[in-house]
């Protein structure tokens, strides 16, 4: 049934400036809120450390203990999720699917690219060829950009020529530059590509929208052989197949042997977070590479074109479009992607920071969600309240928690004055903070085990004999990475949103040793 909300002007709102009058003011307030609360938390900690250091220290100790328990709590989710992924990787999905009728299902794979190397595109296409699915039922959509370099377009044409006959359908689209009401980026590109594919392939060949599973990948996404079988099984057993997105686990290990430690730690931490989220489907929104039935995404109006975080926004679009009757189903199956890697360590660090900031720009969803919840009266109140709390808490903890744990704990000692410095708590505070951080870090043993289990074989040309050992010890960098590549970029993104300095889509440069000049 066509949703009323989808027809409103609010459905595709990208930012406050898309609205007018009181609606503009409301949306603007919601844009300000996450950053304001994060900054207020940090400023308040400093102020309270000065005026009431004793009570502030008690609060910090309680928070540290909460964080310690949270680490254990999340470790249990990580372990459970990891076990399910291991089982799924070993499962004979073809045998599992044998009870269902599934041969009519097409897999549409959208691979947007900008200026990436030919080898990166070909590796992704090769993984599709190696996947366990009838190639005649695979529709590959290579989605290029008009604003890309001429060399890239020429290269893409060669790739099309090489691979076109290997799949049932191969569509090469070039997203026109400078379209009105669009932001250059992945969202506008894949939205254009899928619409073109609908007309040129699905409609022309009479393929039913209900029979097509769309996987919106990044150009570096490499699928494991059983991905489409696992996805299809999850789709077929789903109670609400047309009101569900399907989320794999993004594992950033394509170039892990070449990546520096900071890149590996940040990338693995991101994967772990997604693994934990798989265990909490009620809190799960789509992220990065994800899949959905064509009918669903067609009904939702495809990806939004005027925002940065199209991957998660499509979930919120759908949730509002279907009046709350929407969910993300975890499929506990990995897809492999590139971690950040640049020719120099500094460039890599800068790219990691920019990528994290772009992800943290997902804060732009908060005003959209709350504004949508206010306007869409058909969604039950408690579901709205729950989802708003989950999103808000996520944004707040991302930008502040590691700063509270590793930095703010010292504020009462620094700002508390001499009267506080003579208290027993001022002596115990740094010791307790340190001990809790150390105990929490013990959870990293699990991180080591999980990350090593996803480690691809060492490339033959990889010379460093100690890389594997470094991959174990790299986790000591966590206190550094959670601040520099966690809280700070999140605070950066929220502050930009707070001041209305809207971010554009930053394309993460793809680099693999030996491929780039």
């Amino acid at each position, binding site marked *: 049934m066509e949703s009323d909300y989808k027809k409103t002007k609010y459905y595709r709102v990208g930012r406050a400036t898309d609205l007018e009058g009181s609606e503009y003011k409301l949306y603007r307030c919601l844009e300000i809120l996450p950053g304001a609360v994060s900054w207020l938390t940090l400023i308040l900690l400093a102020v309270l450390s000065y005026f009431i250091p004793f009570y502030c220290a008690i609060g910090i100790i*309680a928070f540290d*203990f909460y964080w310690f328990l949270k680490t254990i709590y999340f470790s249990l989710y990580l372990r459970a999720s990891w076990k399910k992924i291991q089982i799924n990787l070993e499962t004979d999905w073809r045998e599992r699917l044998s009870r269902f009728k599934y041969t009519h299902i097409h897999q549409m794979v959208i691979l947007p690219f900008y200026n990436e190397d030919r080898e990166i595109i070909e590796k992704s296409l090769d993984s599709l060829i190696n996947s366990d699915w009838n190639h005649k039922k695979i529709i590959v959509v290579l989605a290029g950009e008009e604003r890309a370099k001429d060399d890239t377009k020429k290269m893409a044409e060669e790739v099309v020529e090489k691979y076109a006959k290997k799949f049932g359908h191969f569509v090469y689209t070039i997203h026109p530059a400078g379209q009105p009401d669009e932001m250059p980026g992945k969202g506008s590109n894949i939205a254009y590509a899928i619409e073109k594919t609908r007309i040129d392939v699905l409609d022309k060949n009479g393929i039913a929208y209900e029979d097509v599973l769309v996987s919106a990948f990044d150009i570096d996404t490499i699928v494991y052989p059983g991905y489409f079988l696992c996805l299809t099984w999850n789709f077929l057993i789903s109670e609400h197949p047309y009101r569900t997105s399907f989320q794999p686990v993004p594992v950033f290990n394509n170039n892990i042997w070449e990546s520096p430690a900071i890149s590996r730690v940040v990338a693995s931490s991101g994967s772990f977070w997604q693994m934990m989220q798989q265990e909490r489907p009620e809190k799960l929104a789509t992220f990065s590479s994800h899949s959905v039935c064509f009918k669903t995404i067609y009904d939702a109006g495809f990806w939004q074109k005027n925002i940065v975080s199209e991957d998660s926004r499509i979930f919120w679009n759908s949730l509002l479009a279907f009046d709350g009757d929407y969910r993300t189903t975890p499929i506990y199956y990995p897809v492999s992607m590139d971690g950040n890697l640049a020719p120099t360590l500094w460039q890599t660090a800068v790219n990691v920071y920019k990528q994290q900031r772009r992800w943290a720009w997902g804060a732009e969803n908060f005003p959209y969600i709350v504004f949508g919840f206010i306007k869409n009266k058909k969604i039950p109140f408690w579901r709205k309240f729950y989802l708003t709390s989950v999103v808000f808490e996520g944004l707040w903890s991302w930008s502040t928690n590691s700063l509270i744990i590793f930095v703010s704990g010292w504020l009462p000692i620094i700002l508390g004055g*001499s009267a506080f410095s003579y208290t027993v*708590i001022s002596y115990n505070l740094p010791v307790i903070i340190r001990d809790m951080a150390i105990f929490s870090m013990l959870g990293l043993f699990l991180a080591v085990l999980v990350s090593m289990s996803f480690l691809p074989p060492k490339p033959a040309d990889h010379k460093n004999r100690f890389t594997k050992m470094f991959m174990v010890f790299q986790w000591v960098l966590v206190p550094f990475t959670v601040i520099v590549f966690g809280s700070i970029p999140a605070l950066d993104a929220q502050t930009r949103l707070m001041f209305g300095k809207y971010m554009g889509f930053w394309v993460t440069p793809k680099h693999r040793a030996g491929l780039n000049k």
Partner: protein
Amino acid sequence: MKEEQKKNRTFRLIRLMAFILVFIIITPFIVSYAIGDMPDGWFNFRKTGGIYLFDFPNGSEVYLDGQLKKTTNFIQRDFFVKGLKPNTSYDLSVKKEGYNNWNKIIKVEPNLVTESSVFSLPIVIPFTEVPQYIVGTKEKKVNTEYTKVSQVFSKPLSVDYSKDFSSSTINFSLINLVIKRKSAIWSDGRDIMVRWLGEKGQEPLMFCENHVCRTESVVASLPGTIKKLDFLPGRTDVVVVLVGKDIYAVEICHNNSKILQKIYTGTDKANFIIYNDNIYIKDGVKIGYLEI
């Protein structure tokens, strides 16, 4: 599938509740421990305090009520003990071979840490003479260090401190007065006077006893009239004092157990000056410095 999801959700909810319960139960214990309240039977806590000592010579032995508690080393140069019964006085002593013993009675207060710096100098402090002439040359060549220090003795640096004491009735031109890091010391006959010139509430430890701080007081009385005084290089809680022909190092402290250590005995002509972070002594024509 739906049944499994429901079961999974129930299990997760129970687990979440269990974690919340653990948080609610354990947090008060952690907070109590942090503020210095120790469990004393079921649902009962007793307040405790602590003692913190610092500025040790390496390898000192720290005794609490006669029991050896710690031997300091290059890395662990301080001593902290907590969980002590409040409103009780503890006998702290620090011993190191070749050094003067340091001893102090420290009263512990509930939920507070009583801090004290340790003041322990070597029993024999080597005096290194600065020769007037450089030895080994055929002609008598004047030692420039001797000349320089000698000049400093004859023209001590004069600093006008009157602006720091604008509201005071003391005639500071008539007495020895030294100010270092907002702490002023001066002599009045046999007494060492001390005043805090900084903000109230920011007083260093030497102005306080049992966490009650005073901004001005007499902190020590010497065996004779004080001829000269200055801060010991590197510290603001120890004063070097010239009394008669003896030079002492005196701990600024309100506690009665303050330490007085003789660091030089010379003649009636003995004088000292703090120069380049050293205690230079001039005794007649002899000039030298103490190796502390």
